[in-house]
């Protein structure tokens, strides 16, 4: 038999082997596991933080070929480096189960046509606001792919981003305005071309990709399932219907005026079906490639998505009794960004040539030694003396952030994980923000007198020198002094209060914001324990030798080993990820209670459950330990060392296979991830969904032969 391996298997096993060979501790107090990032003489706060680059909306009719409900399996030649022959132009798995659910009911109204490709100069930058609201940088300004003007450009193999450019991309949508997000994979066909080769850690990332819209309420075919990845020269159509959860059963006649979407060209609104208590606001989208999420996201595959509703419409002036009038602006009916700013936090590292690098051999996690905001190293941002909303995203690999203003002034948290809280929470220090968590914070700069020297900084209080968890939360005074062992402690974003607003601030931060939904009767409970020391039974069950796995076999493409894993319902021990295994299968239309337990060591895990928003019922068995900023809906649940979280979720509206995993993406990749699914809501879904196996030549399916006893 000809011995063959898929590239993911090779990489994974090599990584697993090298785990023992890799340095287990940081060198010289620098947390990257690599030589310290050279500074190239750059100083903090010497470049502007550019706002996100708003992706243009295009007519659906401009897409060629036109989007289709089922995956477009038109054949095209496949690069010899990918095995040659022919394969489908679209990487979405074929057939009715992976067809866009409710494509006829929610036909796309517009499209976003984007690429994933190597770093290049941005000549079409659009911040969505005039230059005066973007530290003087206007639309059309050339933006080079670099973390700072004093650093070299990133090469096309070092950084891969949406459209290949800086800054990160923003998609703006409104409820009941379905979109097609067409993503073209323009990465190199040669899998070895994943880095500049300029130094240790310069080669990382994989050219097959899957984009997760975190945490969209739509079918699994659009969720960026970890096994539904697509290849260079393919595209994938993601269909985001942008609907309120519960639309099948709640407010079906769209009679509740609170459940509405803003009209695009006038101050009015249009009622929509669903539960307005499930209104979402701040999402992000990022790669979810099986076993390579950490590397690909770190390499730049991340953007944000703002969802506008009648409650949170991005217009602070419209006073219709529904609009919450949060800081935003007034010029447009919805989606004003003047005072509504997306902020993506991520620690990075680079080599002696200034090219992005990453230690992929430390399975505890990866930490950078440089702080970036929207991919810019320690920048400044000009603000007016008024209220702003900052949609803060932790897009790091393994790092937690704890934020405060340098003068200790209060901020108001209005949303957690993109969901407006029941009540605003005034904070002077945030909680540790786990990876993938989003904190929407309102900062009122009217307390400062504008002037050339009026500055206040965002400060990181969380010291972290190991990927497992923060070492300590420092006091503000300590953090302001910096920390010799963690360069990311301290000031990282300078706000310059440059002027008074030309127009009076009309924004509000009302109380209440969005109360939690009324919950139906619970149907069952499940327990998930997150541990180290996991095992992978799949290979043995399939009686296939690891090294000589049969091409196309289940074991070859879905089974990996890694130190991290999940035990489900106290059965079968702690298991490594296998996206062919069904660990849970809630019934369509039900509610369940899930407990997430941190099973070992002193580490922390921010656990993400796809598709459905949950409500935390208790921490460590105690409802009183749920802090006010976690009283709303969430999709990332930080366990804390020795801790547990009990939450409840509803499973409704759409079906398919989803995931639950640690969003310390190094843990996720190695291999703290499981598959759960909703499959009994009617045709074409079948109980125990077939597992897709992606190749450039097409997607095949294998039956789910590993179903945990308590899954159904």
């Amino acid at each position: 038999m000809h011995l063959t391996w898929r590239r993911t298997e090779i990489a994974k096993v090599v990584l697993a082997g090298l785990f023992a060979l890799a340095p287990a501790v940081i060198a010289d107090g620098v947390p990257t596991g690599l030589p310290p990032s050279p500074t190239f003489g750059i100083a903090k706060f010497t470049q502007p933080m550019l706002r996100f680059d708003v992706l243009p909306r295009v007519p659906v009719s401009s897409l060629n070929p036109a989007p289709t409900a089922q995956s477009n399996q038109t054949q095209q030649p496949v690069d010899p480096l990918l095995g040659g022959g022919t394969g489908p132009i679209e990487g979405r798995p074929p057939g009715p189960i992976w067809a866009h659910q409710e494509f006829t009911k929610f036909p796309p109204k517009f499209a976003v046509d984007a690429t994933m490709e190597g770093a290049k100069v941005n000549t079409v930058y659009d911040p969505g606001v005039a230059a005066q609201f973007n530290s003087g940088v206007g639309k059309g300004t050339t933006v080079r792919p670099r973390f700072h003007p004093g650093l070299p450009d990133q090469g096309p193999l070092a950084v891969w981003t949406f459209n290949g450019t800086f800054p990160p991309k923003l998609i703006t949508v409104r409820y009941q305005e379905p979109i097609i997000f067409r993503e073209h994979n323009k990465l190199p066909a040669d899998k070895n071309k994943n880095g500049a080769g300029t130094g240790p850690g310069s080669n990382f990332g994989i050219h097959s990709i899957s984009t997760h819209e975190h945490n969209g309420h739509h079918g699994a075919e659009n969720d960026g399932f970890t096994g539904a990845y697509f290849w260079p020269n393919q595209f994938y159509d993601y269909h985001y219907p942008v609907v309120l959860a519960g639309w099948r059963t709640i407010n079906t006649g769209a009679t509740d005026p609170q459940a509405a979407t803003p009209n695009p060209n006038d101050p009015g609104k249009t009622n929509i079906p669903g539960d307005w208590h499930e209104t979402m606001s701040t999402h992000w989208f990022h790669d979810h490639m099986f076993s390579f999420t950490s590397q690909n996201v770190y390499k730049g595959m991340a953007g944000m998505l703002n969802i506008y509703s009648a409650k949170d419409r991005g217009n602070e002036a419209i006073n219709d009794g529904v609009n919450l009038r949060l800081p935003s602006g007034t010029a447009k009916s919805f989606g004003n960004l003047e005072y509504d700013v997306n902020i993506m936090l991520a620690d990075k590292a680079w080599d002696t040539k200034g090219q992005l690098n990453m230690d992929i051999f430390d399975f505890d996690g990866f930490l950078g030694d440089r702080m970036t905001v929207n991919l810019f190293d320690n920048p400044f941002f000009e603000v007016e003396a008024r209220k702003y909303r900052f949609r803060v995203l932790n897009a790091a690999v393994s790092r937690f952030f704890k934020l405060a203003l340098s003068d200790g002034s209060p901020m108001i948290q209005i949303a957690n994980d993109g969901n407006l809280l029941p009540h605003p929470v005034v904070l002077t220090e945030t909680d540790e923000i786990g990876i993938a968590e989003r904190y929407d914070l309102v900062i009122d700069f009217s307390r400062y007198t504008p002037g050339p020297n009026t500055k206040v900084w965002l400060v990181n209080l969380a010291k972290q020198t190991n990927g497992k968890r923060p070492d300590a939360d420092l006091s503000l005074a300590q953090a302001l002094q910096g920390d010799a062992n963690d360069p990311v402690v301290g000031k990282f974003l300078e706000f310059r209060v440059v002027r008074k607003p030309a127009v009076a601030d009309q924004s509000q931060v009302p109380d209440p914001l969005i109360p939690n939904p009324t919950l139906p009767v619970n149907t069952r409970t499940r327990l998930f324990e997150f541990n180290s020391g996991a095992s992978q039974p799949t290979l043995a069950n399939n009686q296939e030798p690891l090294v000589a796995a049969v091409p196309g076999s289940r074991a070859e493409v879905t089974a990996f080993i890694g130190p991290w894993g999940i035990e489900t319902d106290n059965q079968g021990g702690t298991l490594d990820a296998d996206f062919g295994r069904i660990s849970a299968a809630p019934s369509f239309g039900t509610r369940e209670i899930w407990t997430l337990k941190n099973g070992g060591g002193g580490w922390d895990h921010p656990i993400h459950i796809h598709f459905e928003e949950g409500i935390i019922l208790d921490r460590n068995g105690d409802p009183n330990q749920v802090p006010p900023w976690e009283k709303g809906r969430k999709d990332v649940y930080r366990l804390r060392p020795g801790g547990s979280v009990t939450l409840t979720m509803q499973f409704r509206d759409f079906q398919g296979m989803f995931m639950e995993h640690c969003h310390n993406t190094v843990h996720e990749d190695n291999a703290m991830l499981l598959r759960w699914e909703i499959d009994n809501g009617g045709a074409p879904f079948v109980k125990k969904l077939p597992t897709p196996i992606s190749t450039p030549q097409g997607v095949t399916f294998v039956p789910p032969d590993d179903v945990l006893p308590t899954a159904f």
Partner: protein
Amino acid sequence: MTNSIASRIPIALSLVVCGLVLAAAPANAQTSTVSSFTIQVSGTASAVKTGLSETVMFAGPLVVNATVTTDPALGPTVALFVDGRGVAGTGNKTKTAYANTCVATLTRPFGPTDAIQTTFAFFQDTAGGYMNAKTGLLTLNLTYDTATMALTNVTASVGTM
């Protein structure tokens, strides 16, 4: 897509074995010790530092919950949950009531003692009062029994930065 790896098998096999050995290693043993203290705390926020027209006097219960978890690699760590929402604030001139959002979840290294400073917001307990919140400072001194890893004493005070 497939990749011929015949030439890589020896090294790959050794790495596989290495990886499997690691993957099969038992989970690190964990011990968590949970202890809790409720103490009475008091202090003042001076008008000079808050910009308010009066000094705010604080008094009330403070709950400190400590979960100490062993970690074979990194040493024990403490997950603290501090809840001072029951601490009442009163203006010394107007007798205005002040509410607070003094809730902190903190990660701390474990040791026989720990001195912590954390800030919190307080504001007039009126509709919309949170829009004009001020900053208070909570100073904590924790003592642990290093054998049992339980909290043995907590002292705290409230003030301003």
